[in-house]
């Protein structure tokens, strides 16, 4: 469904992605794991159009995504939950969700999606008039996830959803990711918490300093000695 072929992305003069090739099939949960500065966020920002690669191709079901601007990529069915959640702090919960549905034309669809997000995260319904900046970290993550779902994405890009959250909340968020996936949304999950990510993913890619060094099914990655040592903390 989504394919990256030999993608090179630069931040100024820094060569952040050095020929990333990966593919995600419809209905999968695929995770990208790797340490700080490995290029995980850069990969997601390249897919969503916030960064343009200098070389290589990004295609969604055969269609070139690079030619579209970031806001147009959303209309192609790609939604992203940014790192650190990125909720609009001064907008209310409802307004944040409405912004998530900015690409939708009809009011009925908006209402339907809001209902769906509220069933997924009942907590957001309780807080719908509250300003997002006053929510707790977990609630902000719920809001950011719900907001990304408002656009009816075909593929959801998630950047470090577990960051800074209590373990209970991390579990809740990961359960939700599985639920979202079950209703047909493909998920590309970037995580430092490799243990959690591999527990729910079908396949995984390991990223090191801008290059993919390993790819396998999640089951096999969990058993791989290199992954165990570097990312799972197993001696």
């Amino acid at each position, binding site marked *: 469904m989504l394919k990256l072929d030999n993608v090179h992305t630069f931040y100024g003069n820094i060569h952040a992605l050095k020929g990333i090739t990966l593919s995600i099939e419809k209905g999968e949960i695929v995770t990208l794991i790797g340490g700080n500065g490995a290029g995980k966020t850069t990969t997601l920002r390249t897919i*969503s*159009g*916030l960064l343009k690669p200098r070389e290589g191709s990004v295609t969604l079901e055969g269609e070139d995504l690079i030619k579209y*601007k*970031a*806001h*147009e990529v*959303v*209309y192609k069915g790609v*939604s*992203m939950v*940014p790192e*650190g959640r*990125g*909720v*609009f*702090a*001064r*907008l209310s919960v409802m*307004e944040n969700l*409405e*912004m*998530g549905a*900015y*690409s939708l034309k009809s009011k009925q669809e908006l209402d339907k999606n809001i209902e769906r997000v509220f069933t997924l995260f009942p907590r957001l319904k309780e807080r719908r008039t509250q*300003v997002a*900046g*006053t*929510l*707790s*970290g977990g609630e*902000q993550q719920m809001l950011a996830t719900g*907001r*990304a779902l408002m*656009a009816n994405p075909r593929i959801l890009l998630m950047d470090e959803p577990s960051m*800074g959250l209590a373990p209970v909340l991390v579990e809740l968020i990961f359960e939700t990711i599985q639920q979202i996936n079950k209703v047909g949304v493909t998920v590309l999950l970037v995580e430092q918490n490799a243990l959690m990510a591999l527990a729910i993913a079908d396949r995984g890619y390991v990223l090191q300093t801008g290059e993919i060094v390993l790819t396998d099914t999640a089951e096999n990655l969990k058993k791989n000695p290199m992954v165990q040592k570097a990312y799972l903390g197993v001696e």
Partner: protein
Amino acid sequence: MRTSVGERLLDLAVSGVLWGFRILLVAAVLLGTIATIRAGKYTSEQWIDFVVFGISQGSIYALIALGYTMVYGILRMINFAHGDIFMTGAFGAYFLATWLNGIGFIDNHPILGLLIPILFAMIMAGGIAMLVERIAYRPLRGAPRLVPLISAIGASFFLEYAFRGFFGPGVYAYPPIKALEGEWNVLGVGILKVQVVVAVAAFIMMAILYFIVMFTKAGKAMRAVSESKDTAALMGIDVNRIIVSTFALGAAMAGAAGVLYSLIYRQVGFFMGFTPGIKAFTAAVLGGIGNIPGAMVGGLVLGVFESVGPSLFLEGLGIPRPYQLKDAIAFTMLVMILLFRPSGILGERITTKKA
């Protein structure tokens, strides 16, 4: 952090001087006020007059200030050409109103004769602001913050001297609207009709703008873009389009303000945007730059202080021609607010929780 004794003494001395300054200023205002009231030179009707004039003047500042504050909110940039956008609106309305006056339209339909030039000024100012954004600001997006500021000053001079080149250095008289001449008698106090109409019109415009920003899809997108352009783009919001609409909306308010200003002062000239422009900028800072209700409050506070101040406390201090110091009051307030409360009256409070 360890600081040397010398540094700490210096800090103490600086804050001592600032406090002294603050106390001195408050004392001067209080003393002046008491002296004026004791002297009893002005009647209560005159005081009401000062306040009403201050409100109508302040509502014009507020309308202009909205453009500064909205553009700052979204681009973190001071659009110094905004005062000249105000001037272009006034010029456009002047030509249209003169023509309407020539065919007798304004005398027969005073309300439409007021509204049509306002609408035209809004469209004209909005259009020019969109061009300025496209030509002078957008190519510099992502440049260091000083660069668009310099470009804004350039745009300001360009507009001023382009209009001077086309229409000359003189001033034109805005056609009179007969229905607005004279006074209304409110509870035994005569109030100039034009000042009431100006204030009411400005308040209606502000209410419309507030509605747009708070409740429409585009307005919500403006607020989203002002928080994070990248995240807004991830929502499918065309950031450039929202930025242009913000410029156009702010400029439309300034254009309308240009007509209201011309109704009071009856003069239209190429340099007319300069002083109201920096006064409105002061009002935006006073209310808390980036904050829309702040710009409205700041404008009104500034207008009333400027109008009441000279006779209320300057005259009491024995200053010979207090009205000449009107502008000094405005800019003293700007310096004071920058020194003592840089976030303004309604400064930003909510921040994103990072954890």
